[in-house]
């Protein structure tokens, strides 16, 4: 048997494209979406054994859609075209008698069902399976209007007396090509069961998503993380299949109250480590638990290319970027985003301290009479041994918060060396920092 004879294609026809895609990908990794989005084809070679036979597979597809609350029509055949035809016009459907390729149907009548007698097709509620090698017979009774020919082509076929696909298949291929062009050849091949249009898998969606619906609401962290891990694992596997890693992760928790709780992680560098992502979500959930029990969740992975880093021959190796990203996220969860990072010198002209200075943020209110310092901190009070100043500093006059200060350096009898300032506008004294 040649390759074409081995092909088995399933076609899903229905309304909800994302849902159909999810369903299709659950059955086969090779999935193509038609250009108009109406049909989804699956390469189901080798899949039938999982469901006893192809009828079982088709019934499972229909049942899977029904469980999710929507309907789908399924056709399985040896080619994409025939699979779509039997899915669209398989049972109890209205087949057009004539029309154009824009789908304007002039008249309708009950379509003849594909030949189920003689073992050509198997059929059930919502599905039709064409036996291998019987594609031509399966669609022979369908009117040519199901091919949606243009008005001119439809008129030509009518003049030839061609009403059904069986009649079209009987025409010489070269003559059809001569008179109807490439489209006519394709229709004739399809009708003859010779359609060899390959299945071109549609790439996975940009942001793979996994959903979990829970039978019982979860109100504790550990069970929730257990479920979450499975979902993240699956998204990670789907990203890995295309050579991507997590650039960001979005988690939506569906709550018992009907509300949703959205959380997202955007690590500093792309991550592939599921345990790390789970750890970050643990921190997030533990620090701010959801408002109600969780009835379901959705994990969406924002893909990013995995980065490679070149180590320097001449500099010490720093933290591994991915590990550092996890650490930064954990630190941010622990102390707050605004309290982790690289220090920046303020973009202002300030007097540089001659010695190392420990700043007091905010400055500590003080009373200073030139000889003795009093503050609320017992270590920062006492008689002065020596003092110098004032060192005047004025700034911010271009902003809404101008300041004018007189700075002093003071050595206390207890040994502390302090920097004080007096706010000129309020005459209040503050300890700015400690020389250390």
């Amino acid at each position, binding site marked *: 048997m040649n390759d074409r004879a081995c092909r088995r294609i399933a076609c899903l026809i229905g309304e909800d494209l994302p849902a159909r895609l999810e369903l299709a990908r659950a059955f086969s990794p090779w999935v193509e979406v038609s250009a108009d989005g109406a049909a989804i084809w699956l390469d189901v070679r080798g899949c039938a054994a999982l469901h006893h036979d192809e009828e079982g597979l088709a019934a499972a597809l229909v049942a899977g859609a029904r469980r999710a609350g929507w309907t789908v029509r399924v056709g399985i055949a040896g080619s994409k075209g025939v699979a779509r035809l039997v899915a669209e016009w398989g049972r109890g459907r209205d087949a057009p008698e004539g029309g154009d390729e824009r789908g304007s149907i002039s008249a309708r009548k009950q379509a003849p069902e594909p030949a189920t007698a003689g073992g050509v097709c198997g059929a059930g509620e919502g599905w039709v399976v064409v036996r291998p090698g019987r594609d031509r017979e399966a669609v022979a009774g369908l009117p040519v209007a199901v091919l949606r020919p243009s008005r001119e082509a439809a008129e030509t076929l009518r003049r030839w007396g061609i009403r059904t696909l069986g009649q079209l298949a009987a025409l010489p291929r070269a003559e059809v090509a001569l008179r109807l062009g490439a489209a006519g050849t394709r229709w004739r091949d399809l009708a003859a069961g010779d359609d060899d249009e390959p299945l071109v898998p549609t790439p996975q969606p940009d942001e793979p998503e996994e959903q979990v619906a829970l039978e019982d609401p979860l109100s504790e962290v550990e069970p929730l993380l257990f479920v979450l891990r499975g979902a993240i694992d699956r998204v990670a596997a789907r990203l890995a299949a295309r050579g991507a890693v997590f650039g960001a992760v979005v988690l939506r928790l569906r709550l018992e109250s009907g509300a949703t709780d959205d959380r997202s992680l955007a690590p500093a560098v792309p991550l592939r480590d599921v345990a790390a992502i789970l750890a970050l979500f643990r921190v997030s959930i533990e620090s701010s638990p959801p408002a109600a029990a969780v009835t379901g969740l959705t994990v969406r992975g924002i893909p990013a290319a995995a980065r490679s880093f070149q180590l320097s021959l001449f500099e010490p190796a720093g933290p591994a970027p991915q590990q550092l990203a996890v650490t930064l996220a954990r630190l941010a969860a622990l102390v707050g985003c605004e309290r982790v990072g*690289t220090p920046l010198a303020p973009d202002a002209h300030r007097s540089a301290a001659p010695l190392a200075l420990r700043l007091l943020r905010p400055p500590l209110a003080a009373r200073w009479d030139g000889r003795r310092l009093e503050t609320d901190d017992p270590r920062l009070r006492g008689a002065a041994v020596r003092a110098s100043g004032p060192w005047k500093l004025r700034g911010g006059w271009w902003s809404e918060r101008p300041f004018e200060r007189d700075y002093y350096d003071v050595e206390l009898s207890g040994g502390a060396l302090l920097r004080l300032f007096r706010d000129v506008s309020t005459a209040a004294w503050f300890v700015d920092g400690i020389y250390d």
Partner: protein
Amino acid sequence: MEAVNGSKGPVAAERDPQALLARLRREGVLRTALEVGAYGTRPVLPTGVESLDRMLGGGLPRGRIVELVGPLSSGRTAFLWQVLAVATARGEQTALIDPADAFDAAAAAAAGVALERVLWVRPGRRRDAFRAADLVLDAGGFGVVALDLTDLRSGGEARGWVLWPRLSMRAERSATVLLVLSERREAGTFAAIALGLRRGSPDWVGAAGSPLLLERLDVRIEILRSKVGRPGGPVRWTSGSSEGKHGRHAA
């Protein structure tokens, strides 16, 4: 011994050989073969204070806890900046856990610290400071992690002694120098080295009747405890820029 006795200068001037030996051993000039072997294989981070590095066998031991202990204004922060400046100049990544939010970035940069190689974490609580240090050490790859416990305003919080074994293990695994700044010793036996800092007299300059300028700080550094060598010191180190009061003007 011949080399020592035959040398000139202040060493040769020592009259009592036993006292001379004791002093040289205390200063780290003379070491036993065991110590030389240990120093030769142990990775260290130089502090840039030559006499202290010599006593420490090359510098601060990597993978160990080093305590900087001293009262207010004893020079702990200045010494920390000195270590950070040396480490960042070598291209190493460093981290500063600063619960008091006391880090003066502008002055540290002026002191030679490459800020872009410093991860600055400002936990609000002492307990979080230990957890932050744990996380940073766990990440690995940092040459120095400084845990500044010199927090004036959190003296009432419980001490985190139970975390020292964990931090010690993490530091060893990541070959990181964990510097702990505090007013009294905190890490106990988990500290490989404890350096005690004392301040000498501050260097006020200026003639009588004119404004005084606080120029430099004379710091005495003593090795209070050492698992890798022996206690010793003190060594003198001067903190502060000779350029003095950059941008300051007397009124």
